[in-house]
């Protein structure tokens, strides 16, 4: 009895010493061990289609240490096979905890990326804020040519994504893993990803890529993407050059009002735009009110046309990246199913109105 009493009195000490013993001895419950010098926490992965239905994965190592960098590439059947393959090939152990960017080639995205995204999604090591992007062209060649000139290329890319994500900078579409997945599983809407063009010298933002569930079906060009930025949830553009009318509109903000008719046959969208004329190289005299009004009208009808074309292209492809389907939801009625919504969306009449309010930065008078 006495023995037991003594033992329990010292129980906290025993527990503590026991944990220490377990922790320091070889008999540890954790088979993982991390030593900083032996790790390679990679920042980006780029996934392309390989030969014979395989995946071609590449990344840049070493990630942060001052050593000459190189590009590693592997052809694998499974994504995690890549992780293992890199471990076998490279002296440091590969860690996914710092993975920040996933670049997916366009051809792969057109076939569907659901399985890849799901693998990353369910891995607790990988952050839900992983940036996703689609790349046209050969990204590996771009990295290969840039390695010497820009050794922190991977980190710089991450900073770029981060910059445009934060505070709605409103120039690029930026989407992370969670946002993509939420849209994939959502009732009506479809995900969007940024699409970049890569070649030997450049890595350029092209526009937004529209997905149908997990499959890429269409993408905007640079000009239409600006309208998409104004319609989607960012609603802001710092610069909107319109070469056709020799004008650049700056500091543009939009306020979008969607209205779906009761029988879902007509969609009205009113976009109130407010900005300033930051540059004009045309022949009009913008000090004069009537001429300014004429320019405004021209741009306004052009914008209406652009918006209509953008929405019509979405209807043609049967995608809904702007979450228009959510407008059919009512507080107390049963939601219609996706197929029904797509049918309605394809046939919907569009009614686009733009209220353009742009001011030059000069004084405007009636007669000049």
């Amino acid at each position, binding site marked *: 009895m006495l023995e037991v009493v003594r033992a329990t009195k010292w129980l906290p000490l025993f527990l503590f010493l026991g944990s220490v013993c377990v922790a320091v001895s070889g008999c540890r*419950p954790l088979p993982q061990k991390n030593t900083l010098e032996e790790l390679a926490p990679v920042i980006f992965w780029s996934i392309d289609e390989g030969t014979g239905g395989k995946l071609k994965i590449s990344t840049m190592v070493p990630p942060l240490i001052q050593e000459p960098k190189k590009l590693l590439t592997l052809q694998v059947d499974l994504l995690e096979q890549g992780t293992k393959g890199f471990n076998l090939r490279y002296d440091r152990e590969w860690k996914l905890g710092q993975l920040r960017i996933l670049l997916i080639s366009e051809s792969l995205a057109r076939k569907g990326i659901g399985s890849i995204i799901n693998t990353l999604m369910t891995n607790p090591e990988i952050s*839900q*804020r992983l940036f996703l992007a689609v790349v046209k062209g050969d990204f590996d060649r771009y990295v290969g040519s840039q390695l010497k000139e820009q050794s922190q290329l991977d980190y710089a890319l991450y900073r770029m994504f981060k910059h445009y994500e934060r505070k709605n900078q409103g120039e690029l579409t930026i989407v992370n893993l969670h946002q993509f997945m939420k849209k994939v599983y*959502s009732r009506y809407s479809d995900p969007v990803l940024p699409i970049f063009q890569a070649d030997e010298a450049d890595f350029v933002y092209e526009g937004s890529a529209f997905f149908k569930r997990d499959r890429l079906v269409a993408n905007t060009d640079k000009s239409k993407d600006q309208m998409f930025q104004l319609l989607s949830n960012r609603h802001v553009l710092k610069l909107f050059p319109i070469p056709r009318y020799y004008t650049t509109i700056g500091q543009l903000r939009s306020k979008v009002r969607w209205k779906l008719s009761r029988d879902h046959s007509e969609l009205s969208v009113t976009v109130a735009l407010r900005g300033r004329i930051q540059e004009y190289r045309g022949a009009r005299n913008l000090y004069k009110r009537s001429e300014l009004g004429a320019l405004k009208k021209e741009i306004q009808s052009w914008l209406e046309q652009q918006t209509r074309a953008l929405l019509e292209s979405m209807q043609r492809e049967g995608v809904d990246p702007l979450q228009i389907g*959510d407008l059919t*939801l009512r*507080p*107390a009625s049963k939601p219609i199913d996706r197929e029904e919504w797509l049918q309605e969306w394809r046939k919907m009449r569009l009614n686009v109105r733009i209220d353009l309010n742009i001011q030059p930065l000069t004084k405007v008078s009636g007669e000049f």
Partner: protein
Amino acid sequence: MTPFSIFRRTTDYGGLYAMLLVNRLQMVYFALVIPAYLVQPYMIWAIFAAGVLSQLNLWLLSKWFASRYPEQGRGGFVNLFGGTTLRFLAAIGLVALTVKIIVITLGYTDIIQQFIFPTMNRTWLILFPAALACFIAMHGMESLIRFVVIAFLCTFWILILFLYFWFAGHGSIRDLYPILPPSWSAGDWNSLLLLFSSLSGPEYLVCLAPWLNPRRHPLKYMSIGNTMTILEYLVLFATAVIFYGPRYLSTIRFPVVDMTRYFQSPIFERIDIFVVPIHMIYFIYALSLFLLLFFGGVRIVANRANRPPVRTAFLVCCAIVTAAIACADEWSWESKVRLNIWQDLQIGLGAAGYAVVPLLLVVAIRRKGRA
């Protein structure tokens, strides 16, 4: 040599402790997984409904707390039911308690394994919390009741983290549509049962009655505790629906923990590894309380309640419970059905226990009063 006195009673603990106990016991484990079972936005009303039912039970419970029986401890129960019936009831209670201990421990073990130690041997993950809970329980019932304040303060603030999602532009009000149920299916009734079962726990306050003394306003304090729980459930569920949307939410195993993965900090990467142990605080608290109750129950069943408690016996009890958890884990947890048998059993037993215990006590008091 200090005498072993885990069931000593020197002073009364008032309504505040009852309130916090009600709240924390209702939050254990099921609160972390329940959004994935409710899924549809209109289940918000089910949370309210379960809350009202729970409130009804607390009202019955408060009737019993207001009577003269609780302060007599075991003697009060013997008066009400008679010795043999009490031993029989305690035996049933022990079974329900064991199932509850097994389900919550293995549930948390799953969470730790998924998020923190994926390769760790599961036996360690069961052994460490059990040893810790045993150690805490050895400090006795009084210290444990006081400890609920710390457990509450350490864990309540996590809820505030989730409010971030309401302001981060993750969804719109339309994510909560349809807010009124367009139809009501059998699955929805199941969810309601699950909710009611996860709100169970306050019935164990019956066993703490000699220490707790909320005689002045028993209902008031317990209602505040219950209301806090309902609010927490509401915030967790609404946030999960807005963050994931219904279809996505139904695919996720531990939504509340998974949501914390979205937070980002400049200092370290894995916020979830930090938040999961904080959720563990009230799990450990509940586990140590249940260990004490288990010991008390065993003493009643074995007819030893009149003798002073023996330390060795308590340690043996802890060992038996730990062994039961380990056995359940080894033989039936990892099988194909995984979790379902035990969880379903707990849902049924929890709901039944929460519904029956207060009713039984009130009926017994009435009968006694009439006789």
